[in-house]
């Protein structure tokens, strides 16, 4: 940290909040609130005279509130930059610090927050994680029993710079504990609180146990665990070393801690699974290894940066395996636990990767983006005719569309990620997506439904999930009906209502509307637009009197090849259950209604031409087919 601060090209801004992020890759405009420290950075020399003079003491957050700090303080002795800070919530304005500071005149009570705007090329988010508060789990008595502590409190107690100068003592009586228990998975792997594994706690509790054993060899240390997870290099050896040192491992999650109210001794009741017996053991002190959870303001940060969150609240990466350090927004990268709980080696690796990714942007004059961006036809946009609309701008998950009434909507190409939500939503067909134009997709639909359309199942799949699911069904050899015909678009948000109307007008037997599960969407809220539209269509088709099951909505992930195959087979079964005459009659009955929905279709640029060409191709194909027969 000190090295980083000394680097002339690195500017460290502490006590600063990000208020707003605008712009796009290479051209971000970031608004920062530099909170006032009431100490002038250009004058403070870090002598600490103000702290000595300050008469106010408040709990020290850095020491997990185990020790006090003054109202004039630095959070920790290694703070970078070493500039003192006055806690205005605690200060009584006695001005003793001003006197103590003397001729340096670094303390300035008239300071206010400063709003600064910076031009930024790339952003690396490294906001870290927070800890689960175990006091909500009444069975472990944290907060009620003084000798039940958290892992962070243990960390401070065991630290030579900590409140006890490294002496490990019981909070109830200040005596060194003879035997300590560590309980793992407190609030993690627990569906009542956080269902996921916190990744590093197994190693963390072993580390703490070894530290305790090294500093106080006489101490008896027991670790309660559900499973010990030591998957990385050297980790299992570390676990071995802990057992060699005499640390006891008990498999079994304790159900309860009770306390002797006079001696504050603790009793852990838990099934020792290997013994198959419930055993109650007595301890002087118990450490709870709390779950890692997202920062409390993670949601706020996520909306400031416009990056999505995964289930559980962590920031969502572009791709979990191939691009774990990239956010879905170009130019924003993740390092460390803000993207998901990780240990130090993984955080360092991701941080270095993110820095390398960011430097690619800083060193290039041009930036390549996905070619599937949206383009507006200004002459068709109703906003240009001074009508109020803005639907595209509201649909865009990346706020990449500038909409002002009276002017045609404008796509900021560098911000566009090519989901096609705006294209799918635009009621006037005034916007299109390169490589997924209406003309191209309609031509595909026509060709796929050229012969015997009533027997076909047209499957609209999104690129990231359901297309992957279909692919997996194929590579895994999950058999599904050969009557399925697939069309890929980037996101379910692009699946225009027109495509589905056109498919039914052409006489398609069934249509599948498929995409990612809502929490997996690669375009933040793309699936939400798609899902809303699909449900609207479902109601419309129900009202038209379409047989149930001919239009189906399914969210299928790339890992659910079996589900894809099952859905298609079920659709085939539904189709088979309708007598052919009844199906034909239904298609004919609905055809005019579908056609009525599509009156504007031929006016979309390129569509008529594409359809004419498709007709020619179909004609040729049919002739060839007939010749063969």
């Amino acid at each position, binding site marked *: 940290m000190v090295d980083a601060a000394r680097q002339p090209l690195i500017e460290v801004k502490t006590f600063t909040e990000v208020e707003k992020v605008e712009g796009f890759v290479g051209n971000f405009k970031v608004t920062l609130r530099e909170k006032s420290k009431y100490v002038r950075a250009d004058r403070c020399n870090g002598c600490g005279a103000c702290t000595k003079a300050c008469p106010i003491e408040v709990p020290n957050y850095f020491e997990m509130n185990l020790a006090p700090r003054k109202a004039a303080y630095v959070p920790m002795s290694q703070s970078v930059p070493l500039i003192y800070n006055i806690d205005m919530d605690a200060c009584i304005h006695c001005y003793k610090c001003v006197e103590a500071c003397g001729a340096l005149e670094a303390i300035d009570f008239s300071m206010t927050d400063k709003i600064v705007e910076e031009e930024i090329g790339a952003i690396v988010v490294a906001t870290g994680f927070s800890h689960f508060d175990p006091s909500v789990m009444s069975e472990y008595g944290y907060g009620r029993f003084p000798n039940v502590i958290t892992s962070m409190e243990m960390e401070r107690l065991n630290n030579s710079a900590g409140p006890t100068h490294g002496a490990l003592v019981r909070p109830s009586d200040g005596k060194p504990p003879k035997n300590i228990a560590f309980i793992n998975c407190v609030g993690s792997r627990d569906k009542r609180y956080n269902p996921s594994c916190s990744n590093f706690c197994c190693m963390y509790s072993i580390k703490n146990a070894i530290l305790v054993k090294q500093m106080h060899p006489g101490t008896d240390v027991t670790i309660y665990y559900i499973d010990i997870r030591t998957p990385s290099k050297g980790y299992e050896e570390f676990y071995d070393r802990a057992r060699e040192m005499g640390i006891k491992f008990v498999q079994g999650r304790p159900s309860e801690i009770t306390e002797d109210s006079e001696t504050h001794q603790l009793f852990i009741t*838990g099934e020792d699974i290997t013994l198959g017996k419930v055993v109650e053991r007595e301890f002087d002190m118990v450490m709870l290894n709390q779950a890692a959870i997202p920062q409390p303001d993670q949601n706020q940060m996520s909306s400031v940066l416009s990056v999505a969150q995964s289930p559980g609240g962590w920031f969502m990466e572009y791709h979990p395996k191939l691009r774990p350090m990239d956010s879905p927004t170009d130019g924003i990268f993740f390092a460390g636990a803000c993207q998901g709980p990780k240990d130090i080696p993984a955080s360092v690796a991701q941080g270095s990767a993110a820095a390398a990714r960011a430097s690619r942007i800083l060193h290039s004059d041009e930036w390549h983006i996905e070619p599937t961006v949206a383009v507006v036809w200004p002459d068709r946009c109703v906003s240009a005719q001074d009508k109020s609309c803005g639907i595209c701008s509201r649909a865009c998950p990346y706020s990449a569309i500038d909409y002002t009434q009276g002017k045609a909507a404008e796509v900021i190409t560098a911000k566009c990620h090519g989901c096609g939500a705006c294209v799918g939503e635009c009621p006037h067909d005034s916007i299109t997506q390169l490589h997924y134009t209406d003309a191209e997709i309609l031509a595909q639909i026509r060709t796929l439904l050229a012969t015997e359309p009533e027997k076909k199942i047209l499957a609209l799949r999104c690129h990231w999930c359901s297309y992957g699911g279909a692919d997996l069904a194929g590579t895994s050899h999950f058999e599904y009906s050969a009557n399925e015909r697939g069309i890929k678009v980037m996101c379910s948000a692009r699946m225009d209502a027109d495509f589905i109307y056109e498919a039914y007008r052409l006489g398609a037997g069934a249509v599948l509307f498929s995409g990612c599960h809502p929490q997996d969407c690669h375009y933040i809220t793309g699936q939400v637009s798609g899902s809303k539209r699909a449900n609207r269509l479902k109601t419309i088709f129900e009202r038209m009197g379409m047989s149930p099951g001919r239009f189906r909505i399914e969210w299928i992930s790339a890992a659910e090849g079996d589900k894809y195959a099952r859905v298609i087979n079920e659709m085939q079964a539904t189709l088979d259950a309708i007598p052919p005459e009844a199906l034909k009659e239904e298609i004919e009955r609905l055809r005019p209604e579908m056609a009525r929905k599509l009156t504007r279709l031929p006016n979309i640029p390129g569509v008529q031409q594409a359809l004419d060409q498709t007709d020619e191709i179909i004609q040729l194909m049919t002739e060839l087919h007939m010749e063969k027969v």
Partner: protein
Amino acid sequence: MSAPTDTNLLSERVKALPGGEFLMMCYSCGTCTSKCMIQPKLDPNYNPRRLIREAVFEMEAEAFADTTTWLCSACDLCYPACPQKIHISGVINAVKALAVEQGWKNPNPSAVVDIFTCVACGMCVEVCPYQAVSLVETKVAGRGLIPVATVDPGKCMACGMCSAACRSTSISLPTRHHDKEIIADLWAFLAEEAA
């Protein structure tokens, strides 16, 4: 999933019954067993975690013979403690129902009815927490075909609620906790106290 599952498997049958849905989610942490009042106080062989394992591994005979299957009173102390939100007593009840279906008998004593004195008032039916008692038309010597209280031994947990509620002392537990024995104990105790 795409591969058809064998619905004859014990685990599948347990999952199909209400309460047994999340059977496969158990990662064997042992919280239920250590939360349970029975193992430390009554029967060291009692272990809900082991019963779940037996159901998961289709060990049908072991599961049906397991003391856990028959002793659980569904107090649900373990349910809120389970980190996987498995309704453990629901699983145990499902296993028990399957055992009874296959003709297994509750090895523990269940309440017995004196059909000669039962007046079919229905108090025992009202108070039974396990819905184990019902009024059934029975042929009783000297009384004809009349409704009398009948205990389903597959459901009875021998708690004695019915016995306490019965106004004609016609229903009671067979061993040790029979009304007569309790009253005799009481008298003996009072006599001791008096002396």
